């Protein structure tokens, strides 16, 4: 039975190409759950979409406080979508704190759906409202729908044996029902979720939530307050099998896939840190794949245990965020020196120091490329969207093994928690990925090198006849014995750097989206700015401007043709969520007058601010 078959009665139905909806409320209001459910329903409806969860750092901030506001934003459309939307068209608001912190984001004329029951005198006072904004004219710029969500919710389930407090907490499903009606979303997925996940544990509560979702939908349909509902036609989506996926989930799956395809056992050594811990949780659930996860005593032990595992012949992985990465740097130098494969996942967050743990930033690029003592370059790869974290992680593992080197994978809070539909790759289509353990003693040299990759042999302890010693002290070329010889040190530093540079052999040349042969402006990006830049460039080109886009997957080494590509454009702009890091690298490396565009507000670039910067740079109105 499909619930979507309910026919809207006399109401008007309006078709729109895209919409951005933001859900806000208290941490305890089930905002993230509502957002996830709405996202699944939207994927099923066949729209393109992108999401942005925005939650507080405090686990349980005081109820109703400004610090405790949790948000979830989704943009969906009948065309391609690259970002969760700059400005919400609709704000679904559960309490005064949510209104106070989010109203300024809502587009003028946008729709505000607000839970009036939460606007008690004490709740208003708690967040500094002198008068009730629902009762004065402060909301005149928006279309306001006042819904007594808690009253309706409790009325709806009064015959069920559900405690009032629990019942009140289920109001998010009533609100979700209204939104499903308003945007014609299919409810089957959410009903299945309610029956299985909630009803499976507590049948009465399952019944209550099911009833609330349907009641919310019926309320939208019958209440005169809502004269119109909207349809967003299906987008033209490439054929394939899809699922909705968060960046951290995709990253974890990429690591599993790398283990399966290479035949290597994956070992993860990690210490919990926001926003990286989900990858640890995820991988800890995949024991049937032989994945060994080790929650270490600290960040340093996390990476060191992974190095130990790689030394033993496993694929060692560690993960963290900025502050933890700083602690791991000495050990990365060791991995570089002893030339063992290792993947370091850095889910960047706002810094410096503890910074903004739940917010996004790209300010660890320099730390990734130059973070260690001595001359210790390592390859650095960046994911550009939630689903892309899968292939980025897979590639990081492949390169680490092929070149016997630590590789840093950069993601960030935006990618980690953001979600988007993912065209699931066929396992047989993943790039081949093999490894070789040296077993023959014939001509064996611990620091002998492969001619093409310059990688040294990987020998598992336990291999007879190949016993040797490695360590952090400088190695003599070939024998690997301790060497303090100045010439040898110079030679070996250059050799290790050259090896990392040779990763270029595996890097695709820079591809330009736009005017490949040159033009007025090239926007050079990396990482999670991909979506905003793509949308902004699409707008600019639509307006007839000569603007192109190149996005870097590898930050070290850089693609062989990058310098030549940059020189084809009159101007180059590098937007980054830091105070200018990649721009510094390309200016010094290619002597190109690249211009920075920076902000560190813990949020992705809005398409609007990129468009504004493009106009300014091209001096157009």
């Amino acid at each position: 039975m499909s619930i979507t078959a309910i026919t809207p009665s006399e109401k008007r139905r309006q078709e729109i190409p895209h919409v951005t909806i933001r859900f806000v409320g208290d941490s305890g209001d089930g905002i993230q759950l509502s957002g996830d459910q709405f996202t699944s329903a939207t994927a099923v409806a066949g729209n393109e979409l992108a999401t942005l969860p925005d939650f507080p750092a405090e686990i349980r901030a005081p109820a109703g406080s400004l610090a405790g506001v949790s948000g979830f934003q989704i943009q969906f459309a009948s065309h391609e979508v690259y970002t969760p939307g700059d400005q919400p068209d609709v704000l679904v608001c559960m309490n005064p704190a949510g209104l106070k912190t989010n109203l300024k984001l809502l587009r003028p004329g946008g729709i505000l759906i607000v839970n009036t029951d939460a606007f008690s005198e004490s709740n208003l006072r708690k967040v500094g409202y002198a008068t009730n904004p629902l009762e004065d004219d402060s909301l005149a710029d928006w279309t306001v729908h006042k819904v007594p969500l808690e009253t309706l919710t409790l009325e709806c389930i009064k015959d069920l044996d559900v405690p009032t407090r629990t019942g009140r907490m289920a109001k998010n499903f009533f609100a979700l029902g209204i939104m499903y009606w308003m945007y014609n979303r299919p409810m089957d997925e959410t009903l299945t979720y309610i029956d299985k996940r909630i009803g499976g544990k507590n049948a009465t509560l399952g019944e209550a939530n099911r009833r609330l979702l349907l009641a919310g939908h019926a309320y939208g349909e019958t209440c005169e307050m809502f004269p119109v509902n909207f349809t967003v036609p299906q987008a033209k989506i490439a054929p394939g099998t899809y699922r909705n996926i968060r960046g951290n989930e995709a990253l974890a799956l990429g690591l599993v896939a790398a283990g399966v395809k290479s035949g290597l056992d994956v070992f993860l050594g990690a210490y919990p840190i926001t926003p990286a811990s989900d990858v640890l949780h995820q991988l800890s659930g995949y024991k049937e794949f032989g994945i060994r996860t080790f929650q270490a005593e600290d960040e340093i032990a996390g990476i060191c245990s992974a190095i130990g595992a790689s030394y033993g012949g496993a694929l060692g992985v560690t993960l963290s965020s900025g502050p933890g990465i700083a602690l791991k740097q000495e050990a990365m130098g060791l991995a570089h020196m002893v030339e063992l494969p290792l993947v370091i996942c850095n889910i960047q967050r706002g810094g410096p120091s503890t910074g903004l743990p739940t917010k996004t930033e790209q300010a660890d690029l320099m730390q990734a490329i130059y973070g260690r003592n001595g001359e210790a370059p390592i390859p650095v790869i960046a994911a550009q969207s939630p689903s892309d974290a899968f292939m980025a992680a897979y590639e990081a593992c492949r390169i680490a093994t092929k070149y016997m080197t630590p590789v840093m994978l950069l993601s960030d809070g935006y990618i980690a928690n953001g979600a988007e539909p993912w065209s699931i790759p066929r396992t047989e289509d993943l790039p081949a990925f093999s490894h070789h353990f040296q077993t023959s003693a014939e001509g064996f040299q611990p620091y002998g090198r492969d001619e093409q990759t310059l990688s040294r042999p990987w020998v598992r302890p336990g291999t007879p006849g190949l016993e040797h010693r490695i360590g952090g002290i400088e190695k003599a070329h070939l024998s690997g014995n301790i060497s303090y010889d100045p010439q040898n040190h110079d030679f070996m530093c250059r050799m290790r750097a050259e090896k990392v540079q040779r990763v270029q052999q595996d890097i695709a040349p820079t591809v330009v989206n736009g005017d490949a042969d040159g033009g007025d402006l090239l926007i050079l990006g990396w990482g999670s700015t991909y979506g905003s830049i793509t949308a902004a460039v699409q707008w600019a080109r639509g307006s007839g401007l000569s603007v192109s886009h190149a996005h870097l997957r590898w930050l070290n080494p850089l693609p062989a043709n990058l310098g030549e590509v940059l020189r084809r454009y009159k101007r180059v702009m590098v937007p980054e969520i830091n105070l200018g890091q990649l721009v510094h690298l390309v200016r010094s490396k290619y002597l190109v007058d690249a211009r920075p565009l920076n902000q560190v507000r813990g949020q992705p670039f809005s398409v609007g601010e990129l468009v504004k910067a493009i106009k300014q740079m091209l001096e157009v109105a």
Partner: protein
Amino acid sequence: MSAPVEIPKYTKADFESDQDVRWCPGCGDYAILSTVQKALSTLPVRKENHVFVSGIGCSSRFPYYVSTYGFHTIHGRAPAIASGLKASRPDLTVWVVTGDGDALSIGGNHLIHALRRNFDLKILMFNNRIYGLTKGQYSPTSELGKKTKSTPLGSLDYPFNPLALALGAGASFVARSMDTDAKHLGDIVTTAWKHKGTSFVEIFQNCNIFNDGAFTSFTEKPVRDDKQLRVEHGQKLVFAKGTKGIVRRNDRLVVGNLGQDATLDDVLTHDATDPDPSHAFALAALDVPEFPVAMGVLRAVERPTYEEMMSEQIAQARARKPADLHKLLHAGYTWTVK
């Protein structure tokens, strides 16, 4: 993997590497190296299955001189690296060689966590109560008031008792020996190898350059018998050629003079397997001049190792469901666009 492994007949020379040993002439490390190499030749383990992991410091050069697999890592981190190695390769015999600064100062955190997790690691901690490689600063086991380059007026740090620390961290095997007694040290190293779980062995080691004679008050021949208590499981805690013993009076350990103020029946019997660590803790704390210093295996209790339990969890997960990558990638709700 239960096929019997053939063990070649080894000699000490089979465990000597081709590298020149570069400790200071007269260093206690030479004696320890020689004793360990000899002990290795007697163990039923193929040479390629031994791995020596070390941190930084004089003692941490050890792996270069043993012709097995070896990994000289970074300061303090050897237990963490060894833990990862053992977790992924339970088949290997993993040794950790460390010093008092490496293990107890910069690497203190890794040491205590390795001990509580009970990975099957053999940790040999050379204690010379000084920083040697950095040329003579006080260490976390140096006595209060020690005058060194960094403490010209005397150190203000109260020292660690390494064995008490290990016991406090829940170590399943705790022992003590010294560089100059090859027979005793060889036996302790072998016993440590036999123990299944983390073995922590403190080895008193003389640094003849920066802290010469640190242990002479109980290791020199004239005082040795009177100032060392050789503990053995199931045996009475007697010393001084059988003339003295450790007895309990008013809930405290005291030295009893046999035939004078105590009889052999009063003397405590050593039980290294006691689940309650307080007996071992009391022995670890005995110190000169009032008491003899306890040498030998203070504690040896059996409990499952981390890597055993980890492998067990993986085996159980595999028995429950097969590893199917296609299925994993398609988990949850999926939809197909044609």
